[in-house]
């Protein structure tokens, strides 16, 4: 399972404060802790408070890389912010461009641009593509799969290895009125999307979205993660510092026969991920 640690995000108060005061220590501490907890990538999101988003992205990337070599996921809806991050990121071990829709009303070529940016960043650079287009987030299964098919098609047309492509079917909060059906739709869509190419693209989600505003956030996150893994999810943006959540991943992967069982299977999972 490819775990993308979500904590370095300007939406969290501690990160927001560290950005405002240019205090490196909390950022480097979060990078270290998430790496030790088994993060494959560290997500980097400047949030909304910083005025200079490009500069802040570069400061965060440089700050993390001073003390940590875990690959990064440059998270922004603005291509200019991702581009700024790419200028300073060490892409040798990998980097994720997070994220792009298929297309936008004002930018029909945004996915093409992301693919090109990834190609330029190096052979291990990946992209996350959202199953949304100029009309927004689709409400049903077929539209999600259709957009994913267009994304996969575009990647293949550009000879972009589908193993470098992460498809995010967009998890909506279960509490949003009339959105409760979406949770099941996403699972069904994922099962279909993985057959769009061989090798299959990775499937990823921003897990915590599902529980936004609910009263049992971590329980909902954990159960949904287990369900999604059984539908083909192999990556997620999660709070890796939640030990119980990582244990859910270890257990689900073991039950899916992706990891060989041993009496110490939880320890085996975290030790192997750290190594």
């Amino acid at each position, binding site marked *: 399972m490819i775990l993308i640690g979500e904590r370095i995000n300007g939406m969290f108060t501690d990160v927001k404060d560290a950005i405002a005061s240019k205090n490196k220590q909390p950022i480097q501490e979060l990078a270290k802790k998430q790496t030790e907890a088994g993060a494959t990538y560290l997500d980097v999101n400047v949030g909304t408070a910083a005025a200079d988003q490009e500069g802040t992205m570069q400061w965060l990337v440089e700050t993390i890389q001073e003390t940590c070599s875990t690959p990064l996921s440059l998270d922004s809806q603005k291509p200019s912010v991702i581009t700024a991050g790419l200028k300073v990121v060490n892409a040798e071990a990998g980097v994720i461009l997070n994220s792009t829709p298929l297309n936008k009303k004002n930018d029909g070529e945004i996915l093409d641009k992301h693919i090109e940016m990834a190609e330029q960043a190096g052979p291990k650079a990946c992209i996350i593509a959202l199953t949304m287009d100029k009309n927004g987030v689709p409400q049903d299964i077929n539209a999600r799969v259709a957009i994913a098919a267009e994304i996969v098609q575009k990647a*293949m047309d550009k000879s972009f290895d589908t193993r470098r492509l992460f498809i995010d079917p967009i998890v909506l909060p279960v509490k949003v009125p009339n959105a409760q059906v979406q949770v099941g739709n996403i699972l069904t869509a994922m099962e279909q999307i993985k057959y769009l190419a061989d090798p299959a693209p990775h499937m990823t989600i921003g897990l915590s979205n599902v529980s936004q505003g609910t009263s049992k956030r971590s329980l909902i996150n954990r159960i949904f993660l287990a369900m999604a893994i059984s539908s083909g999810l192999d990556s997620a943006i999660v709070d890796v510092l939640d030990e119980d959540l990582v244990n859910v991943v270890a257990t689900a992967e073991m039950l899916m026969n992706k*990891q*060989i069982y*041993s009496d110490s299977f939880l*320890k*085996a999972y975290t*030790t*192997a991920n750290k190594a």
Partner: protein
Amino acid sequence: MPVPEVKESFAGQVSRVTLGSTKDSGGTRTSTVTVGGARNVVYGGSIEQAGEKPVIAMDVLDSRPDDWPETLAEHYQDVMDSPGDWAKKCVEEFGADLVCVKFDGIHPDKADKDAAHAVKVTEEVLKAVGVPLILWDSGNDEKDNQVMPKVSEAAKGENVLIGTVKEDNYKALTALALADGHHLITHAPLDINIAKQVNILVSDMGFPLEKIVTFQATGALGYGIEYAYSIQERQRLAALGGDKMMAMPAICDVGYESWRVKEAKLEDAPGWGAVEDRGPMWEATTAICLLQAGVDIIRMRHPRAVATVKNFINQIWQ
């Protein structure tokens, strides 16, 4: 639309292990042996992905065996009372890549010999040959815990492969192998779940995963080889899939297992062909079968079987 790339490739690989310490690194071996490194299944992928060639370790027993059939024993009659000469014969005449000293003679139900004997044998063999050694206990936990620490110490600095440690008896030998600079064999009874567990336990004691070779137990042709084959195959696939707890090279005990089956040694069986051929064929077939599942070190006994398997290895792993 371009045709998608369908070539199978894997993220993980079998770890590389180098046995033996030469003068430069504080030992007295004249050569080292490196195994592992495969990045694909046997026969799969390119030559570069095949990793190191598998090797043959020939068995030398610490005491004269009394249960070896004549077709096997006849090759060793002159050296069976001298492990040093026995080892020399295996290396110089039969082309053994390594020598595996098997301490059958310390077992309480056999000769029940003491640690001083085992140490003397270890020293003799170290002196007689320059290839790396494997030092393999008797299988009696209590006696092994008395004797093997002394054996480990006697080979200190030689970077031998010592074993075996099991789920319920691993602490003493693991600590010693760590202290004496050896590689370690983790042992499971044809059970992949226990195999992984032993590796985790040993690694928990601070023993590096890169210095472990796994022994899943072996079944000879006709006597459970399918279990051994599928476990070895599963271990290789787990290693290729990136499971670091299963990414070690593997060792098999083909010699002992092949020569205890009746088809290999029964003399009065006219319909089965000549016994002189049957035994070595049984051993070679078992070895070649397991090599295809993904085994890195094979323990063997009969010189003709060794020659056949070496020939196979040299043709497959160019």
